[in-house]
């Protein structure tokens, strides 16, 4: 039955139990072609991929791509009018989209937010996910230590090229809770629930570099399937974030408001199913913001350290501004950067631009939405656009 399906071009399902093994499980033992018949030397052509040519790092990129979720405090604040002797509600905006701003919520306040984010990844290291290729090289049949290109063993120069079409989609529901312990000190938690859908379809063909290739290298009923597929859906809790922010400078003349933020990402997400990194991450961050008239620029910068591979350590920064178009409407823009200085020997730099708005329809209730687009598409695992919606209430 399997043979028949292969011959008619229907993909064979791989046997990956965990989503992280989806690609490696497409042809788990390499590709074996149809055994040759006389008069050609009898052999079972066996092609192997020396590595998955970088695709194995896709798993890490996928799990760590969730790190940009942010926890905003968009409470309104007061300044003091010394001449009238009364507090004056500031005309601050409703807060940035993805960045933090320095002021804290305020003692005894509780900010509850729910966000929904949809990510449909489209490129990995600049390559379209639906046009990935992996080359499987012929094994050294005569044992001479080289891949022969001439002579009777020239068929060793043939290559089996697998075209892999990947589809990765994520739906992330994140529940944010922030509590103001003191006027200047917030603590918070983010609990993401992630639904991930990963599909991989492989289509292998022989790249013929030898005159005898067509006689010895062919797919057939006794070969590995040329069309395979794998993947599945998983839903589960992602990596939980614990956060604390301390605002140590506020309303000091020309100085910006300043805060320090500490974040711990716990390995609560299942790394085997790409729901988490499997490591604990620590992110200390400096946050600066200041309102100048109708404009509130903000800068966040920090270095994230992980208990996992050193290549995953990264410098994060967000530069942007938010502005209040109307007392109940704020628009904001953020430039988001993540630089992994130890990756690939020369570093990896991911740069995105986010823009969106926040609306305050009633009381302390806020709704918002933003779109995030990549500015450099050749780095990391990227989506053409990431959409996010948020609802927030301050008690």
């Amino acid at each position, binding site marked *: 039955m399997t043979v028949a399906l292969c011959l008619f071009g229907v993909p064979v399902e791989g046997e990956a139990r965990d989503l992280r093994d989806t690609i490696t499980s497409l042809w788990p033992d390499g590709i074996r072609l149809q055994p040759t018949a006389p008069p050609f030397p009898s052999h079972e052509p066996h092609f192997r991929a020396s590595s998955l040519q970088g695709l194995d790092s896709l798993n890490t990129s996928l799990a760590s791509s969730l790190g940009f979720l942010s926890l905003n405090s968009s409470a309104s*604040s*007061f300044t003091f009018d*010394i*001449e009238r002797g*009364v507090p004056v509600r500031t005309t601050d905006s409703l807060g940035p989209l993805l960045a933090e701003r320095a002021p804290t919520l305020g003692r005894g306040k509780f900010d509850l937010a729910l966000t929904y984010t949809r990510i449909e990844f489209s490129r990995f290291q600049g390559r379209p996910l639906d046009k990935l290729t992996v080359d499987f090289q012929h094994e050294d049949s005569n044992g001479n230590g080289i891949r022969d290109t001439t002579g009777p063993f020239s068929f060793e120069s043939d290559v089996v090229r697998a075209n892999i079409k990947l589809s990765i989609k994520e739906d992330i529901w994140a529940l944010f809770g922030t509590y103001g312990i003191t006027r200047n000190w917030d603590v918070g938690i983010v609990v993401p629930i992630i639904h991930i859908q990963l599909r991989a379809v492989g289509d292998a063909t022989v790249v013929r570099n030898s005159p005898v290739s067509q006689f010895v290298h062919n797919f057939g009923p006794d070969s590995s399937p040329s069309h395979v597929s794998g993947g599945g859906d998983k839903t589960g809790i992602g990596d939980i974030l614990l956060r604390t922010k301390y605002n140590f400078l506020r309303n000091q003349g020309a100085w910006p408001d300043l805060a320090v933020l500490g974040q711990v990402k716990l390995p609560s997400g299942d790394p085997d199913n790409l729901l988490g990194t499997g490591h604990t991450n620590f992110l200390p961050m400096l946050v600066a913001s200041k309102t100048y008239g109708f404009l509130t620029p903000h800068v966040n910068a920090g270095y994230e350290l992980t208990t996992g591979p050193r290549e995953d350590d990264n410098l994060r920064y967000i530069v942007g501004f938010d502005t209040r178009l109307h007392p109940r409407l704020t628009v904001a823009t953020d430039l988001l950067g993540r630089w992994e200085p130890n990756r690939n020997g020369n570093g990896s730099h991911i740069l995105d631009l986010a823009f969106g708005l926040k609306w305050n329809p009633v009381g302390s209730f806020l709704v918002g939405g933003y779109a995030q687009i990549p500015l450099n598409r050749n780095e990391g695992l990227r989506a053409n656009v990431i959409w996010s919606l948020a609802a927030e209430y301050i008690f």
Partner: protein
Amino acid sequence: MGVGLLGRLILSLLMVLLTLLSSAVPVRAADVAVILSADVDAYSEALKGFKTALRHKIVAEYSMEGDFDRGRKQVSEISAKVKPDLIFAVGIWALQVVAKEATSMPVVYAMVLNPPSVIGTGAKNITGASMNVPVERTLRMLKQLGPQIRRVGIVFDRAKTGYLVARAEAVAREEGLQLVAREIHSAKEAIPALDTLAEQAIDALWVLPDETNLVPTVLQQMLLFSYRRKVPLIGLSESHAQMGAVLSLSFASSEDIGRQAGELANSILDGKAPADIPYTTARRVRLTVNLKAAQKLGMEIPKSILGAANSVIQ
């Protein structure tokens, strides 16, 4: 029936014993509840100062976050559950709510401008530390500017600063100055009132902590008046001096105002009636001098004023 010698002796001994016992038992620390009008630095500093001065215990702290409904609920909770011996209200909003809701409990306030216009004069349970600069300080500073300063012009709304003007008139008389006052009822009347002051040949113009004076157009007109008539303007804040007032006097420390309130609270909790304790004015005052403005008016600022200035705009 008369009391015998022995009876009087026993009674005296009992009195002595009771006195000794009462002095041996430590005085109970009274409970104080705090309510802030909003989360602003000035109020936090005042609370800090209050805590350093207070000899009693703060059992609850609330912030009404500028929300009067929230404030009313908080005061209800204070009255019903916390039941403190005294409420400390920081800022005008907290004072307004507490004055209305907690009519019998002793209340001390801080960081309130023009308290008589907020609570009237009938509240027997309330006193506190205002953020007003003592009128004596302002008028003496004006007098120090030189003997040419004799007639000081003011524009005021009786409902807001009538109490302050009455006090200022008394002090001015003592200092040999004359207040030329124009009473108005809204900011709209301020500019015509300034025109009538121009006819009265005043030597200085004083910006009062009165809403009618603080409307931007009125303040702008006062600055223009100062330049055109070559009379110095006395402002209420450093920003007034930066705008062109020759002198400005404002409270220097929220923390110190909080300390003053803490001292008042101690007196009340030691047994004094709030009605017997008058509200206080800022004892630390910040003086800003604008030399540039003085130069434009052709004035020389005496060294005694420059020496006392916290900030001089060159």
